């Protein structure tokens, strides 16, 4: 017997979980199959969540298949990520009303309900942790982000059906989340039947778990979950040496392969928009028609945009090769020096949603693998920001 884990029915238990989170005051967000793609949206009924959905992903390819099978989490995430709930694509950050000779500042209202994120995979849980290091840095933490994150209840899910574009194990993750969640669901389907194993990761997770209509999990359930994890690990070959990438990519700036990618890259920004860790943004001001009130909005931006590096009348990164190099090396190399974490969690979205089918792994391999770079590899002296 394992009293710190319960077994839930995949349908009624899921509904009970949604109800418990709703009762606890959360806005419950979960996966929904809409227009042929998995998106995250408000869910009040478990029936709105996918059942029997499988996903086939490749470079520039996404296909959904649905059949009568009962699995709830046999899909992998789509273009959508939880980022847009904790870091909205566009949000007002400041409102200033001009008064006589000065002005008064208003801060946008906080969201009325904290978020519950139902169904976050390990790559997504880690992506939230990466965003935290950016938004909650020691000097200028973003108070609105801090509140959304601190209040957010994370229901993580062990990945039992990784896609061919998944490469989390290369980037220090795995099919099963180990921290950063309040509850963790592992979907089991074996001779003992189809069921959900729910385990807590926090005190408030335990409080929610306590009100769920589950039975105590047995050791056999824990063993079955370990089997799910191992089966996924076996399907997730290590495709790049994640921890060594900053050193391997150092000195690759002048590699001719950047021009090769640029001949295919549309500089469309899709990869950065679907990335769960990309945080680049624009701050822009707008005024009311009477010009007495100014609004500042923060909006997702992309290093593939020309104006992203605009300086002194021209873009610093004027060519697609320079912009692709900036993006890939930021993700896999320089992020580590900037933030102390990797910028990539290996979710594969950038590859799946690239309209030109450019695979970040293949491009990184091409740059790292060549003799030219190998000959130039020097001991790396990466500047790490003192904390």
């Amino acid at each position: 017997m394992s009293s710190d884990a319960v077994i839930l029915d995949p349908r009624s238990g899921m509904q009970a979980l949604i109800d418990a989170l709703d009762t606890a005051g959360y806005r419950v967000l979960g996966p929904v199959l809409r227009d042929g793609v998995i998106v995250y949206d408000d869910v009040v009924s478990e029936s709105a969540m996918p059942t029997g959905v499988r996903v086939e992903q490749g470079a520039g390819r996404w296909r959904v298949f649905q059949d009568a099978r009962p699995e709830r989490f046999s899909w992998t995430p789509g273009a959508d990520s939880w980022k847009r709930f904790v870091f909205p694509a566009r949000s007002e950050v400041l409102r200033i009303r001009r008064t006589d000779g000065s002005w008064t500042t208003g801060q946008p209202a906080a969201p009325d309900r904290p978020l519950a994120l139902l169904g976050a995979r390990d790559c997504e849980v880690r992506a939230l942790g990466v965003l935290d290091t950016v938004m909650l840095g020691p000097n200028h933490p973003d108070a609105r982000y801090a509140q959304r994150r601190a209040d957010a209840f994370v229901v993580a899910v062990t990945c039992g059906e990784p896609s061919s574009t998944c490469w989390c194990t290369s980037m220090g993750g795995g099919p099963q989340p180990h921290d950063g969640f309040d509850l963790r669901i592992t979907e089991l389907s074996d001779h003992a039947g189809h069921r959900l194993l729910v385990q807590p990761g926090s005190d408030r997770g335990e409080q929610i778990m306590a009100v769920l209509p589950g039975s105590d999990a047995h050791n056999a359930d824990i063993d079955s979950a370990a089997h799910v994890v191992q089966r996924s690990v076996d399907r997730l070959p290590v495709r790049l040496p994640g921890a060594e990438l900053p050193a391997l990519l150092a000195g690759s700036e002048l590699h001719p392969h950047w021009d090769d990618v640029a001949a295919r890259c549309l500089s469309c920004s899709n990869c950065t928009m679907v990335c769960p860790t990309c945080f680049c943004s624009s701050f822009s001001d707008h005024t009311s028609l009477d010009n007495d009130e100014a609004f500042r909005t923060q909006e997702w931006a992309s290093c593939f945009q020309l104006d992203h590096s605009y300086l002194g009348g021209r873009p610093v990164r004027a060519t697609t090769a320079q912009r692709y190099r900036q993006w890939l090396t930021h993700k896999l190399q320089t992020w580590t020096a900037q933030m102390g974490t990797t910028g990539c969690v290996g979710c594969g979205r950038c590859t799946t949603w690239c309209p030109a089918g450019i695979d970040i792994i293949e491009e990184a391999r091409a740059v790292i693998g060549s003799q030219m770079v190998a000959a130039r590899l020097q001991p790396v002296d990466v500047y790490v920001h003192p904390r």
Partner: protein
Amino acid sequence: MQIVPYRVVSRVVVGPATVTLGLVPVAQACVTAAPGQFMMVWCFGIGEIPISVSGIVNGGVIEITVRAVGATSAAIVDAGVADVLGMRGPYGTAWPMGAVVGRDVIVMAGGLGLAPLRLAIESMVSGRAGQRSLTLLIGAREPAQVLYAEQLPAWRSAGADVRVTVDVGDSAWHGPVGTATAVFERMSVRADVAFVCGPEMMMVSAAQALVRAGMSPAQVFVSMERNMHCGIGHCGRCQLGPLMLCRDGAVVPWEMVSELVQVSGR
């Protein structure tokens, strides 16, 4: 994000389309800034840009020197005395004033690059910084664009070796013509510490010349610039390789960026 209203209390034209504004907070207490740090300066309804603090006078009046280049800088240059602008900051790293104590210092400025250096220079010519000697090389496009020209005699009489060079002289110009780097290379000046600020190409050539002359790349400091929206590390625009210049810069030792600036488009 909070923008503090500042009232313009002085406005001096210091060059073509270039002014130095003095600003005091409308209601809040004055802030202080270390030499080389910058403020985000906001003009209601126009926009916000990073501007280095070029002076702190009369117990807290913040001075900024701005040239009208784009919409926001033009609006700031157009601001008159008693107008209100917004500011937040100061942000970024500072010129390492501790490194100049007892040392021979060379300061090289190109164009508006003198503005972010002015607080550091004044700290040195006033005797507060405790350097052994100060050599100041100022480059400008033309004599009319030499910033703070009226202050140079005072800096000289305080013991600084001040030399001014222009790209293009006029009939009244009797000084050197050419870059500050070229002037440096004709001198036999010895320095332990260097502060360099100007256009990136100017800083690269100056820093390379200083290192060729025997200076340690760890003791040459430059003030780097990239596009900046937020100043607080959230917008991701001011990246220069592993650096985020609003946080890790603008002032950085040359050894930190000498390789980075070799590659165009970084």
